[in-house]
């Protein structure tokens, strides 16, 4: 699933490790989500949305909708 995680992280000057610590997951998890190799569960997606103070759909692209 495409997402803006890398951009949002870069805007805040956070490394993958910084984001991983804030989300209480491994850095590998952050990398896998950023590169679209792993789709987070709904609870983790909500945690990410809460952290960036954005609605989920502004972070993750709905794969069933055209751009």
């Amino acid at each position, binding site marked *: 699933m495409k997402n803006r995680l890398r951009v949002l992280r870069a805007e805040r000057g956070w490394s993958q490790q910084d984001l991983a610590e804030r989300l*209480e*997951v*491994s850095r*590998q*998890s952050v*990398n*896998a*989500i*950023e*590169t679209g*190799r*792993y789709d*987070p*569960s709904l609870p*983790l997606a909500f945690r990410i949305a809460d952290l960036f103070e954005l609605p989920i759909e502004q972070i993750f692209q709905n794969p069933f909708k055209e751009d």
Partner: protein
Amino acid sequence: MHTEAAKRYVRRFSVVTTLYIALVAGNAALDRLIHPAPLTAGLMAVLTALPIAGMLMVLGLYLREETDEFVRDRIVTSMLIATGVLLSVASVIGMLQFAGLVGTVKVFMAFPLWCAVWGVAQMLLNWRDRRSDGIA
């Protein structure tokens, strides 16, 4: 990638593995020294195999306690790969036995084979992730 759950898993697995090795060694020594009756030998064999069930329980606990869902997903994926390989190998050997081309194969080898393939599968997934890290 050493989460708290992973550390607990390593500790528990070390204990069960040590117990298993001790029981295998003890079983072999007793077998040589006292040549136990079939019933006793059977009980000793079952007792020696019990830590294997313990290892699987430790694995199950780890999956339940691991809070990092990506790590959990990767472990489950590698377990499925190991199970698939083991069942495929068992089926091929079974067919070869039907054809009379292969003799008796020790069933005892199933768990070590599963563990070995599981380890290789995890290494491959780790390698894939590291490679992706390099690209990212």
